[in-house]
């Protein structure tokens, strides 16, 4: 679906944000990009829908080189939700905000109606349909931005810091929602610092540092490898840390989520009782 070949990117002011990144994201994959502030995560995902074009190297989306097509063409396939929702909200009502992209892509009136209702329902925004987006709270604005992208049903969904400012219930909804996207065979890419969220979702993790990929693998492999994580200024989830400190009494160190932890502990207790 997305293929990146030896991508280098230098901003006009001379900052070298990406220094040789290669990766392949398959159809229907769920990927989390993590790493310290300024590692180049946002810069990398901006290449996926053509907002930035490589200084060197190539990016292919669905076999098409991003250098050859416009952002609007790519955007139809690759939906990108920005880090800060205030960079895109401008309409008088939430409803119009969600319809904006649909109009740009030339959907007919009936489809627009249907898609808007669907997207608002999906993100629990139906009651705000006629409200101005500027009146909403930060977390709600973030959801409006999300709805406005999901509405056109892109094949790839990129979420830059989706969990920031969301309360626990919304985070959980977001997680379920991402899982739902996966059952629809969508490719989902999230950029995040939220280790606990990642531990619960268990995506493939790509760790970045200084414009390079330092590790790429399953959530379990990466999150239980403290040395690699430390390099990229990420700490393991609390569960993993707890198990790490308890390894002396014979517990395994490769546990990342609560459910698994419970099973492992029960098993361990069963063994020690015997």
């Amino acid at each position, binding site marked *: 679906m997305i293929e990146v070949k030896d991508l280098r990117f230098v901003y006009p002011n001379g900052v070298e944000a990406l220094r040789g990144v290669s990766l392949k994201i398959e159809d229907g994959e769920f990927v989390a990009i993590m790493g310290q502030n300024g590692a180049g995560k946002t810069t990398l995902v*901006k290449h996926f829908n053509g907002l930035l074009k490589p200084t060197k190297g190539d990016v292919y989306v669905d076999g098409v080189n991003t250098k050859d097509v416009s952002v609007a063409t790519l955007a139809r396939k690759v939906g990108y939700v*920005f880090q800060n929702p205030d*960079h895109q*909200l401008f309409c008088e009502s939430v409803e119009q905000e969600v319809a*904006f992209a649909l109009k740009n892509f030339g959907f007919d009136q009936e489809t627009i109606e249907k898609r808007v209702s669907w997207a608002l329902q999906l993100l629990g925004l139906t009651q705000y349909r006629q409200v101005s987006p500027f009146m909403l709270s930060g977390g709600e604005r973030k959801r409006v931005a999300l709805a*406005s992208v999901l509405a056109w049903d892109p094949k790839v969904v990129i979420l830059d810091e989706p969990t920031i400012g969301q309360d626990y219930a919304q985070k959980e909804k977001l997680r379920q929602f991402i899982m739902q996207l996966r059952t629809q065979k969508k490719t989902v890419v999230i950029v995040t610092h939220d280790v606990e969220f990642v531990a619960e979702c268990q995506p493939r993790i790509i760790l970045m540092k200084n414009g390079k990929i330092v590790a790429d693998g399953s959530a379990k492999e990466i999150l239980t490898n403290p040395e690699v994580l430390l390099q990229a200024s990420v700490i393991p989830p609390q569960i993993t840390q707890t198990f790490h400190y308890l390894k002396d009494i014979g517990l395994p160190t490769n546990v990342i989520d609560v459910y698994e932890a419970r099973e492992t502990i029960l098993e361990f207790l069963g063994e020690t009782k015997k």
Partner: protein
Amino acid sequence: MSFFEGLKFRKVSSPIHDLDPRIKFVFVLVIFVLAVVFAEILPLLFLFILQLPFVLLARVGKQWLRSLKGAIFFAVLIFLMNFIVSFIYAGYVVTAQMIENAFTMTFRFIVLVSSFSIFFLTTSPDVLGLALEQSHIPYEFCFAFTTAVRFVPVLADEAQTIMDAQKARGLELEKGNFLKRVRNYIPILVPLIVNAIRRSLELAEAMESRAWGATKKRTNLYVLKPKREDYLLAFITVAILALAIYVKIFVPIPKITQILRISA
């Protein structure tokens, strides 16, 4: 956004950056006034060449060129306007004199842009604010001024991000006829303005929670004190001014067209 680039200060150290902003400002002001007073190409050329050592010493050549490039559009406009007006006025004939006059006006504009560009490229908003304050201008004004100057590049960056965000939602800026194109900018202008207002309100709250305006007399971490180089610049400024006054009163300045005719 290239025009803004030319006014964007970058923190580097050079003999020019370290000059006292007040004296630098007087210097720029003198150039400004002289550029307006003299309507001949030779003194304007002198004023332009005078600025080159400053650009070189400050090592801001690239940004300086960029701001000149940003001014090209207006320069061409000024040239055409002057030329066309005098063309019609003279009864639809073209003379070398006319071209020289139009060129002089354009060059005057370039000298002005260049001098201001050098000033802003080599003077940090903070030092500028400090200079205003020490010139006994009320602190509220100084603060408003420095904040405004400092936020111009921030706003330019933000405009870029917003443009990206809307493009990602399928907005095509270059599509449609003229009216449609203007309308295309609404999705960019609204978030830009809303964010600017929101940010200013937040800034006000943040400032007040850090005791802004608690005491009448504010002290400063840095105090400006003129150095040897500053006196040198002050001397140069006075010398240029004296020379200019002398030339203006006693020396008739020939036009290029006149020089050519004499030599011919």
